[in-house]
């Protein structure tokens, strides 16, 4: 069998040697040990080594992964656990590896019986850390993803957040999992870091040998074993074509800040949910961040993040950006995007419900903590902040008042709102008079302009950002902002479409924020057109009678 089928989880073609991530079952020695005091010393050393390693990983991680690793580091260094294991070694002459696993099992089985979901999940953590100590003692360490040879395809049963915390995206050519689905943790991570992935590939670990050449097709969801199969599947050709296209665009795009052919500056920024996304975006040439989805990392937290925690995250992003601007969007939560720490009532129409700034008005303390964290982060680099789902001038004023109370104006933080509701488009002139910038969220704006649910596949044709209503809305917002000398950004998916980006620039948008993978094609398109050309295209496209004609107009100018 040289071709295996699974589920496409992250697009693109990856070719490279297989690196199997297999954690073999441990066989625990029986004992008794001849020298319990030496065994005791070995136990203490192993606990210290594992605790130190976990703490280092926790410090290097962020969000939920950091929280899990931090708790694991505390568990392995737990005085009661260590005492229980030590007394079985001292009094029962048990080998240290068996002693720690058995001591851990006492806690794990007690936790596993809990009716509380959180405590029951912690049983896995206790077993995991004791297993690590035992492996350390027996010299049978599990493979470490941090030591992956460059350009490998990782083949595993599944990868937990803990496993992927040390993964360097630039070292991985692809990811194949026996388990998982499109929405499993590893699949989401693969898409975020732009690595092709295929999941749910039954039997792949047995079928593949370490070092064997693998080709994976993240668009079709197939895995090809061996050089001949990779070639037969046309993957070499596609990988070369993709590389050639990247090279061609890279030549067109050039270096330096984003700009049109005649030097009109356009800020090319990234949409990110975490610091890991930011690293990927910076490597892809992002100059700043146009949308930090602050809710992304905290959805699974049981407690609202504190001001300090939020500040630490923002500070890390500001430092990485090194002078580039960070646009922070305050929590965009609601019934369609519920956070564990903020249970909300189910709603008949969550997309039209209590979300974004509407939810913030019900919980102002959450917004205030966020704004204070932004204020502190602004001491270290340029930061702007914007509120989602704003519909009225009263909401704009409420947001400005909270921001001013937190000292944001005095700290030089630019204030803005997302334009994603038709009411905001129609009153953008009034908003612009009191704010520093407006940021258009094209996904929601398109859905609300057409009254068509984004999640409903039958209405996909109404989600077209080239539609006349969307283009007119963008034009109207740009004109309103320009009358007050304010800047306009776009942070919806349309910003990453090179043809649409040319139109946006023609209307007067000066910041385009997108996923990392879109930065190169958009930069190349801008570098190939003058501002005047963009303006001509925009004037023709906005007059087109439907989306297809507008797209055709914009595509004329693509390099």
């Amino acid at each position: 069998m040289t071709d295996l089928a699974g589920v496409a989880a992250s697009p693109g073609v990856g070719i490279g040697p297989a690196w199997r991530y297999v954690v073999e079952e441990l066989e625990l020695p029986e004992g008794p040990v001849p020298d319990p005091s030496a065994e005791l010393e070995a136990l203490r050393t192993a606990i210290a080594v594992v605790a130190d390693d976990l703490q280092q990983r926790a410090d290097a991680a962020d969000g939920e992964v950091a929280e899990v690793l931090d708790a694991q580091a505390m568990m392995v260094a737990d005085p009661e656990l260590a005492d229980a294991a030590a007394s079985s070694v001292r009094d029962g002459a048990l080998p240290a590896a068996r002693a720690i696993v058995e001591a851990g099992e006492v806690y794990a089985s007690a936790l596993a019986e809990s009716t509380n979901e959180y405590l029951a999940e912690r049983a896995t953590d206790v077993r995991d850390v004791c297993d690590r100590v035992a492996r350390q003692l027996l010299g049978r360490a599990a493979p470490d993803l941090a030591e992956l040879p460059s350009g490998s395809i990782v083949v595993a049963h599944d990868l937990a957040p803990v496993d992927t915390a040390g993964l360097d995206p630039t070292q991985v050519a692809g990811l194949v999992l026996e388990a998982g689905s499109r929405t499993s943790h590893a699949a989401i991570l693969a898409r975020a870091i732009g690595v092709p992935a295929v999941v749910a590939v039954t039997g792949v670990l047995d079928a593949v040998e370490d070092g064997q050449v693998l080709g994976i097709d993240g668009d079709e969801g197939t895995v090809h074993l061996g050089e001949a199969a990779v070639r037969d599947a046309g993957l070499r050709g596609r990988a070369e074509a993709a590389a050639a296209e990247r090279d061609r665009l890279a030549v067109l795009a050039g270096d330096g800040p984003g700009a049109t052919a005649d030097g009109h500056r356009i800020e090319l920024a990234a949409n990110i949910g975490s610091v890991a996304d930011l690293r990927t975006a910076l490597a892809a040439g992002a100059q700043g961040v146009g949308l930090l989805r602050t809710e992304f990392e905290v959805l699974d937290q049981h407690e609202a993040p504190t001001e300090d925690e939020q500040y630490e995250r923002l500070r890390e992003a500001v430092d990485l950006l090194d002078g580039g601007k960070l646009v922070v969007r305050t929590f965009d939560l609601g019934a369609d995007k519920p956070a564990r720490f903020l249970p909300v009532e189910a709603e008949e129409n969550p997309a039209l419900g209590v979300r974004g700034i509407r939810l913030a008005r019900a919980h102002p303390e959450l917004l205030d903590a966020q704004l204070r964290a932004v204020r502190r982060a602004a001491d270290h680099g340029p930061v702007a902040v914007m509120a989602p789902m704003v519909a009225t001038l009263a909401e704009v004023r409420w947001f400005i008042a909270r921001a001013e109370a937190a000292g944001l104006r005095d700290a030089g933080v630019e204030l803005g709102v997302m334009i994603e509701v038709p009411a905001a488009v129609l009153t953008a002139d009034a908003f612009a008079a009191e704010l520093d910038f407006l940021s258009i969220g094209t996904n929601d704006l398109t859905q609300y302009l057409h009254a068509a649910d984004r999640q409903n596949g039958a209405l996909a044709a109404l989600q077209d950002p080239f539609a006349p209503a969307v283009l007119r809305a963008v034009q109207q917002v740009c004109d309103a902002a320009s009358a007050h000398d304010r800047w306009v950004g776009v942070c919806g998916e349309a910003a990453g479409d090179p043809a649409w980006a040319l139109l946006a620039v023609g209307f007067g948008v000066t910041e385009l924020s997108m996923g990392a993978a879109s930065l190169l094609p958009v930069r190349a398109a801008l570098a190939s057109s003058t501002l005047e050309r963009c303006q001509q295209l925009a004037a023709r496209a906005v007059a087109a009678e439907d989306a297809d004609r507008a797209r055709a107009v914009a595509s004329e100018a693509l390099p």
Partner: protein
Amino acid sequence: MPERDLTFDNEVGLHARPAALFVKKAGEFDATITLHKAETEADARSLLAVLKLDVRRGDHVRVTAEGDDAEAALDALTELTGQL
């Protein structure tokens, strides 16, 4: 022996991050600190013991401390509980 009654009004009680914060704080003192919930008790320096105690929102817990800095430890833990 000094003791206090604590009530955990925060969302998740002594689980997750609050448990970790509580245990770390207890570890800053020399005193032997014990949590008592109904008939069971837990060493406040052991995350596993504290988790096993399963303190949930609204639960009352008696905390005892023995040692030179017992009072200071109880003050600090009471203050922390109010901030969880």
